[in-house]
């Protein structure tokens, strides 16, 4: 049955590479359909209530065990890659280095319980933090992508200075401390665990792993000892990255087995095999999980109280300028803040695909439960492109519902607020009009002021909150015009077209 491991490896590469490359691509040249690969991830499928995918994943798990963990989950495969490559750095380069360990039942079931309870009570904080796919997205987008852009810019610089413009410089993503720190912490702890304890993260912290562990206790196929062939050499146990094989008692903890099939390849005697569970009764030793309801309760209470405190703390922002305390601006398709906050897992896909890089991971703008969820941050020349709906079309969790292009041009994600007393035209009595210049709907337009000068005016019904005006307003540090986010995204009025000019001009006029 050694071929099973090879199939697993091939499949995991096929699932992993497209996701990795899609997240890394900073040129926007990869086809957007690649995001379909992300729809088959557990948490996105659950959040977007994609019943087809949920059905397929459930069927797979009930049939074969946790093959989601070993092939489909990018964070799982990522750990395998780290574990595999760590051979280069480890002192003892032995292959068989794992040992059976007891499951961390209290911890894993508490985490799963806490996530579900918190989510039911309306906070997606832990889902965002612990969804394995989104964790992978954050690690790649916050750590690897910037590195790649940095390398690209180095090459671009040297090529450009020789007159070759086949590469061009790409703006580095904005540094958002919280998002970066989360990515760093997860990367190093997951990497360290992967090197030392294989899939311990998946079997202890990861809620998807824990959930699938429950399913895989009753899966049709499972890994089991063939007692007649086994000589208890322990080779299977030493190769088990889930540390779930106990060769002494000849038992396998199904709930932690990620069906990587390494044991099958390790065993030379056919002492362990992948077989149908239900042909022989009483062959499995399941462990009863510890009763942990009290601990779970305490943990959850703590988490809830903690998040309430932090959400409160967020409201105590100092209010120097109204621009600093404005409501966050959600990407188009977010619909309303409750839907968006509950469904977005902060995977950073839209952030990496935004051609203008106006989307950035939030710090505390959405409160504690919205850390790393995307919001729009405008800066010079960086605003939401009128003819673009990429973010809404790649979102795997349906936090952003697809918005057709014509619809996007009328989706009011925010409204421009003009502070005319700060405006350049008023304060210096000179022409400016940069805001109106950048306004695609002319919600911001110029009206007569004095001495032939014109000053801006905002028609709020027409404004879609793209931030063109704010991005280019020369008044700094706090612009004279800024966008206030809409908690409910409504439809803006369609801009009226200009009167057509249909006379014929056949003279130069000079």
């Amino acid at each position, binding site marked *: 049955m050694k071929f099973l491991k090879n199939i697993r490896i091939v499949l995991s590469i096929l699932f992993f590479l497209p996701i990795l490359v899609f997240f890394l691509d900073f040129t926007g040249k990869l086809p957007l359909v690649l995001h379909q690969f992300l729809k088959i991830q557990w948490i996105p499928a659950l959040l977007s209530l994609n019943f087809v995918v949920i059905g397929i994943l459930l069927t797979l798990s009930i049939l074969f065990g946790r093959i989601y963990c070993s092939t489909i989950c990018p964070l799982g495969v990522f750990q395998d890659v780290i574990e595999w490559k760590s051979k280069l750095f480890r002192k003892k380069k032995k292959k068989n280095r794992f040992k059976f360990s007891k499951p961390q039942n209290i911890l894993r079931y508490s985490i799963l319980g806490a996530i579900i309870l918190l989510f039911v009570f309306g906070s997606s904080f832990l889902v965002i933090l612990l969804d394995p796919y989104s964790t992978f997205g954050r690690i790649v987008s916050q750590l690897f992508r910037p590195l790649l852009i940095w390398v690209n810019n180095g090459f671009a610089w040297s090529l450009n200075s020789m007159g070759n413009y086949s590469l061009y410089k790409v703006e580095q993503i904005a540094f958002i401390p919280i998002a970066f720190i989360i990515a760093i912490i997860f990367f190093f702890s997951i990497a360290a665990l992967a090197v030392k304890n294989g899939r311990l993260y998946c079997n202890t912290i990861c809620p998807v792993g824990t959930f699938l562990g429950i399913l895989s206790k009753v899966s049709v196929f499972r890994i089991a000892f063939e007692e007649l062939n086994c000589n208890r050499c322990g080779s299977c146990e030493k190769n088990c990255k889930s540390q779930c094989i106990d060769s002494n008692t000849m038992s396998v903890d199904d709930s932690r087995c990620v069906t990587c099939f390494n044991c099958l390849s390790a065993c030379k005697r056919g002492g362990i095999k992948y077989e149908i569970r239900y042909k022989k009764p009483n062959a499995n030793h399941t462990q009863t999980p510890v009763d942990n309801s009290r601990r779970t309760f305490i943990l959850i209470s703590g988490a809830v109280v903690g998040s309430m405190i932090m959400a409160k703390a967020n409201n105590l922002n100092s209010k120097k300028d109204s621009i600093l305390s404005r409501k966050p601006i959600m990407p188009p398709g977010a619909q309303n803040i409750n839907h968006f906050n509950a469904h977005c897992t902060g995977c950073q896909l839209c952030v990496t695909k935004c051609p203008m890089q106006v989307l950035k991971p939030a710090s505390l703008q959405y409160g504690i439960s919205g850390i790393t969820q995307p919001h729009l941050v405008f800066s010079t*020349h960086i605003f939401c*492109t009128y003819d673009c709906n990429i973010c809404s079309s790649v979102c795997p969790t349906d936090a952003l519902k697809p918005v057709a292009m014509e619809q996007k041009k009328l989706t009011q994600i925010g409204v421009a607020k003009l502070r005319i007393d700060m405006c*350049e035209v008023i304060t210096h009595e000179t*022409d400016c009009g940069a805001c109106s210049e950048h306004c695609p709907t*002319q919600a911001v337009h110029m009206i007569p002021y004095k001495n*032939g000068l014109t000053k801006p005016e905002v028609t709020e019904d027409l404004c879609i909150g793209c931030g063109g005006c704010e991005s*280019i307003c020369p008044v700094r540090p706090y612009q004279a015009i800024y966008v206030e986010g809409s908690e409910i995204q409504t439809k803006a009025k369609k801009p009226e077209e*200009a009167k057509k000019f249909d006379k014929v*001009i056949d*003279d130069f006029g000079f």
Partner: protein
Amino acid sequence: MKRRDFFKSAALAGLAAAFSPKAFGLTSTSKSLAVQSEPDMVAVMGGEPAAMLTRALKELGGIGHYVKKGNKVVIKPNIGWDRKPELAANTNPELIGTLVRLCKSAGASEVIVFDHTCHDWIKSYANSGIQAAVTAAGGKMVPGNDESYYREVDLPRGVNLKKAKIHQAIIDCDVWFNVPVLKHHGGAKNSISMKNLMGIVWDRGVFHRNDLHQCIADTATYHKSPALNIVDAYRIMKSNGPQGKSESDVVMLKSLIISPDFVAADTASMKLFSQVQPTDITDVRHIALAEKLKVGTQSIEKLNVKRIKMN
């Protein structure tokens, strides 16, 4: 024999005088002669962009008059916006493509085209149709999205702007052409050849903070001025500029105005524009301010203007 030789040389001289020197592709020694016979401004109406450009350049002594063999040429269109050509937010791609082709045919070693765009540069280059036209004609599109492409130059004649960071392509080239599109503009009132210069500089926030019109006029004092300002008025944007909202903002004028003089080109363009949308030229303050800085003249009646109607 002497008399025969004399007649021969006299005949040759006569021939040479009859045909303008540039017809033979003669070089700068004969330039001063040529300049006198050439107009200060050429205005063409009624043709397609490529035909009008070719016709106008013929009046000006042909492209070879400006582009020499081995020259590095830069063309600076308006590619500021992610808009299709029909919306007239950017310079006509056919016009740019033709100019690239002409420069190449005159022996230019390379023809570079760029703009410091307002919208995403990749999308603007592509959707304006200019990237495709330039590449097809053998030119090279160069990015302008990063500060490292710009170098600081002095503007000693500038009033508010004494220094500016200008794209290295312009600084390093042998000759460049400024090819704006004629547009209404919410901020500067109108965008023509001098307003188009904002696309060769890096920091435009400075312009808006220090009297936009004066800064535009100051930029026009940059000593390396374009060989020609080629104002695209094939389609013009009469309202809601500089982006425009729809094709209702666009008027088909099928015109082209060319002059080496910024102020004259903009003045003439304003007169053409005002027939569609009456505009007081004094509101486009940078035109008068530039004249004050001796960048050029608004008195086009004193210039030798060649007007051509094609049909």
